[in-house]
């Protein structure tokens, strides 16, 4: 059991899966000798050669379309989108095509492909290196979407994604890459897609969150504990399908639901979590279903001052906890 960063867990997992299974290949921009701009693929081309670690032309639609074609012909491609902000040209191949391969062929074909998408802000990325892009993927039947926030989950969910016989979008928060460290067992394990996890049990109020905000929420929960509030923190981990059972159980048990996200709130993951709770837990709640997110402006300013003002922070989360707890 070694302590690893998130990015190292991602890299080691790909290394291990590529060793285990010849059909696993990696493709994307700068994934070869550069090792990826975040070094997620560092050393892979040296280990597996240019046939299995492919530096593609700068063209995301073809990265995903080629991955899809290779997937239906026996490969298990892992496509890397360099930054989430650049996934938009590939939407047609992912949302339009990959999601419907199995359904549209009545099961004759399937597409075992993984798309890794580094996303999120707080990295001085400005409008085009900070985006959260989960909404459309999480909306689309036929796709699975995972968003691990810890090195342990990054490995376990990436293994599940690679071995899945259907397309999986893996959202990796860029800010967690080197910030978050944790123990990662060396042996093989996987985490089933579709399971949320209670990362901190509590009884007074439930926070539902994912990605970087998990860590901020855990910090806020610690701070709240100091004033005697016992806050539960649920890490959604999978954004499609959402784990309705765990969500509903937690909200019903604590009676108060606070949903935290970095993405802008309108029509988002937090909307869906709120809708699930509003439908399933109505009679058990004793406070409004509360959401905390950034303002409805394009995410997110390059200015460090404004970036900090844009992002939810442990302090803002603590405020929201206190406000909701008082109701």
């Amino acid at each position, binding site marked *: 059991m070694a302590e690893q960063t998130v990015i190292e867990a991602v890299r080691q997992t790909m290394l291990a899966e590529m060793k285990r299974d010849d059909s696993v290949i990696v493709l994307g921009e700068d994934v070869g000798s550069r090792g990826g701009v975040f070094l997620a693929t560092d050393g892979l081309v040296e280990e597996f050669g240019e046939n299995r670690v492919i530096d593609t032309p700068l063209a995301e639609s073809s990265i995903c*379309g080629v991955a*899809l074609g290779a997937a239906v012909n*026996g*490969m298990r491609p892992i496509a890397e989108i360099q930054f989430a902000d650049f996934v938009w040209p590939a939407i047609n191949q992912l949302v339009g095509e990959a999601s419907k391969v199995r359904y549209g*062929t009545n099961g*004759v074909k399937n597409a075992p492909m993984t798309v890794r998408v580094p996303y999120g802000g707080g990295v001085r990325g400005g409008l085009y290196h900070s985006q959260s892009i989960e909404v459309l993927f999480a909306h689309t039947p036929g796709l699975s979407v995972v968003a691990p926030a810890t090195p342990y989950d990054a490995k376990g969910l990436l293994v599940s994604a690679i071995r899945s016989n259907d397309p999986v979008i893996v959202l990796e928060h860029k800010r967690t890459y080197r910030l978050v460290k944790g123990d990662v067992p060396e042996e093989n394990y996987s985490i089933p897609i579709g399971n949320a996890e209670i990362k901190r049990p509590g009884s007074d109020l439930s926070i539902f969150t994912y990605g970087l905000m998990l860590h901020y929420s855990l910090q806020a929960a610690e701070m709240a504990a100091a004033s005697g509030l016992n806050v539960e923190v649920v890490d959604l981990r999978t954004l499609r399908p959402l784990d309705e059972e765990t969500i509903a159980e937690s909200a019903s048990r604590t009676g108060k639901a606070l949903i935290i996200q970095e993405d802008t709130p309108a029509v988002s993951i937090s909307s869906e979590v709120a809708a699930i709770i509003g439908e399933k837990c109505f009679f058990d709640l004793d406070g409004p279903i509360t959401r905390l997110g950034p303002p409805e402006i394009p995410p997110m300013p390059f200015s460090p001052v404004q970036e900090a003002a844009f992002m939810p922070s442990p302090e803002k989360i603590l405020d929201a906890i206190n406000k909701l707890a008082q109701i």
Partner: protein
Amino acid sequence: MSATANQSSKTSNTTGRLSGDRLVELYRTMVLSRYLDERVWLLNRQGKAAIAASAQGHEATQVACIEATDPSQDHYLIYYRQFTAMLALGTEPEEMLRGFLAKEADPMNAARQFPLHGAHPRVDLFNFSNVIATQLPQAAGVALADKLKGSDAVTIVFFGDGASSQGDTHEAMNFAGVHKLPVIFFCENNRYAISVPLENQMGIESVASRASGYGFPGVQVDGTDVLAVHEAMTAAVDRARAGDGPTLIEASVERLLPHTTDDDHTRYRSADDIEKMSDRDPISIMSELLKRSDLLTDSQDESIHANAKKRVNHATDTVDAEPYPGVESMFDHVLEGSANGGNS
């Protein structure tokens, strides 16, 4: 081109690499395709088929293209106008009709999709979506997998002149060119993207001329000429199997009918343009070629037509009587093992 080919056939009773027997066989498929295609339009007019795109005018190109390939190992990424190609690849008329009539036993997609969409259970022939040009990067990926596996298979991807404008077409050809993939880009250029004529689609005359921008050969052929198409395809297939990379083939054809059963091409084509097309009907051209080459007599031709008609009638009766799908199956195959891809 026909003329030369014709000559060689006179001497050897084979034409290029195609024997006279095979030529007659191809003609038989073309005629069957035409009858079935006409039937489908009729079924649409009767309110039984929701929509149909026709291959009328594209038949010669499609049979000749498939003839140069090996269905036991090759991959075919078709688009909605590959009606004749599907028959040439062994799809039965009943199977085609199940698609148009949205019957339960539809082999391609179990009535989830438009006809000719989905994947064939016997040949590696598929068409995931109706979204123009998405199949081109996918084809590059299929071919990439074969290259990695060291397989001998060739991937053939079909598209129209309209599809040539899409970004995906460029990205696919570029990727295939970089990796010298065993893929053939086969463009059926009928000079129209629905109503938009070629001159509003591109500032040049020939799609094939773009191949040089990707580092592989581009060939323009007369798509009503079975021999010319077959020859170009054979060269491309040889090239691909030898590991020398892609070829772009552009076959010039006519779209004899409106874009689909929903369209009325008199809104945008001149009477003269429509009139002139009939000179380029591949069925008459092929019939004449065979007759001039002493490969077909008038009475043989008649019986080919009669048999096609019988076959189509039989298929229509069979499929018409078959059941529609029930509701429950619509939940299948969203994800592996799921009868429901829902949020739980």
